[in-house]
């Protein structure tokens, strides 16, 4: 019962197609958990199911227990109470995940305001502004004075993703879901964002569910990983073991391919 997130026998299906079958895993408080899989393997759907945001056409069955609350079949009101304090998400494409017509400072301020209200703390303009500054500082964004008034299209992709991370952290969640947070970024920025997320969740004691198709990135971030294929978990275990000595044939193929790719790159260098 000490698990923060417990997914047990989760199945997701549309009327005529099964998308995720019999998925089970747990995440302990403060743990960094990675999910690897090719596109269409059901990684992102699983993340949506955890937050109770599945499209209407997809029906979940099984158990998802988040911070002691059952998610599958919960009412919208119960789910709304979980979103924020229990879980927050960073999405793949920060440009579309930010409101294009709202200044960045305000977008961070809204979840801050909700959290302060929830905690019964001071929600005055200065208190909120102070927390927004603090968050911008935490995600290492330069020049906060100008950033607060900027619109999403006026800053770089890496900066946008940092703002998105700040928004997620503004909720002070127990679990942070990062759904391919680096896929839309260039390699240098990717490395920075990965480092930032890892450092922040450790610093704040937040559990992390990190979803990616990039073995190297997941290997860097996660303590434990799960490999998904065609909606099923093919292997779960400590990152070091799964990514060096995998048991499953598919995982082995993935790891070998990644290794060959690296070797090929080194050969050229």
């Amino acid at each position, binding site marked *: 019962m000490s698990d923060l997130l417990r997914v047990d026998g989760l199945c997701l299906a549309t009327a005529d197609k099964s998308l995720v079958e019999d998925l089970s895993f747990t995440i302990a408080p403060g743990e960094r958990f990675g999910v690897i899989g090719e596109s269409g393997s059901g990684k992102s759907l699983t993340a949506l199911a955890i937050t109770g945001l599945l499209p209407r056409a997809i029906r979940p069955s099984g158990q998802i227990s988040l911070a002691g609350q059952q998610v599958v079949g919960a009412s919208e009101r119960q789910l709304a109470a979980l979103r924020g304090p229990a*879980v927050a998400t960073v*999405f793949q494409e920060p440009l579309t*995940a930010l409101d*294009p*017509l709202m200044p960045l400072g305000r977008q961070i301020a*809204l*979840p801050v305001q909700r959290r302060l209200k929830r905690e019964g703390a001071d929600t005055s303009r200065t208190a909120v502004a102070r927390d927004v500054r603090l968050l911008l500082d935490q995600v290492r964004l330069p*020049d906060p004075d100008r950033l607060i008034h900027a619109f999403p299209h006026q800053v770089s992709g890496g*900066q946008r993703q940092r703002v*998105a991370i700040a928004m997620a952290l503004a909720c002070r969640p127990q679990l942070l879901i990062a759904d391919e947070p680096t896929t839309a970024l260039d390699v240098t920025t990717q490395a920075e964002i990965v480092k930032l997320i890892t450092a922040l969740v450790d610093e704040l004691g937040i559990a992390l569910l990190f979803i990616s198709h990039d073995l190297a990135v997941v290997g860097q971030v996660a303590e434990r990983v799960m490999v998904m294929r065609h909606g099923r978990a093919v292997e779960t275990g400590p990152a070091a073991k799964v990514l060096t000595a995998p048991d499953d044939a598919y995982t082995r193929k993935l790891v070998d391919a990644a290794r060959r790719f690296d070797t090929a790159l080194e050969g050229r260098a």
Partner: protein
Amino acid sequence: MSTPVTTAPRRRRTNPIHWLGFVLVGVIVLAGLVSFVWTPYALSDMAGGRLEAPNWQHWAGTDRLGRDLFTQLMIGARIALVVGSGAVAIGAAIGITTGVLAAFATRFFDDALAALFDILIAFPTLLIAMLVVAAREEASLGTAILALGIGLSPVVGRVTRILTKRILSQDYITAARVSGTSWPAIVFWHILPNIAPFLGVNLALQFGLAVMAEASLSYLGLGAPPPNASWGRMLQEAQSTVYTAPWGAVLPGLALFTLVIGVNLLADGLRDRFDPTQRGA
């Protein structure tokens, strides 16, 4: 790492055609406002000869009772603006509310509302307006505003519904929901601001249509009753003398044209100016 952040909107040159819109609307608004404190003559003052051509005493000539047409044009501007704004306000209130509700509703209610919008749009606005006037059993300014507002609402509703649905499918709505934003907050903070630039242009077009429809209603004798001078009624009164005194019909027509085209140009310009996504990146 530190990409420069440009927050100051780059000053772009305003398209002169948008300035034209501003000037045209400005002229009409000014005429309407001045009419509250000053008009050349009293509205029903038969101060001149019958059907005088424009001259120094009567800048727009006189009608067949010798009343000053310039005075009527000024009062007409006031009526047109009041009816246009009132009708758009009512149409927007009904249309935006139902449109947003439809976008949020279950499949069944959404389909039902969408069908209702389509049916109401297929009804000519003027016909709906005439039904409302008939139901109220009197032709008054308020009835005309209400009638046109109801007539416009399904168009606003349909546009709102589609715009809202498009915004609802965006990642930032999912992001807002996942961070615990309530639906009303999502509507007010994220949806309304994001549909506003598009909806604003649509409402401006509706304003033009409402002004025209009011003229039509008045022309048919269903608009504001006689002491008020509406451009539509001026047109109707000038109809019988259009060959001997054409200015009586040409001038209100020109006023109507000026306001409608001015509003459309202005709306276009305002959208260009206030849509932050169109500012320099």
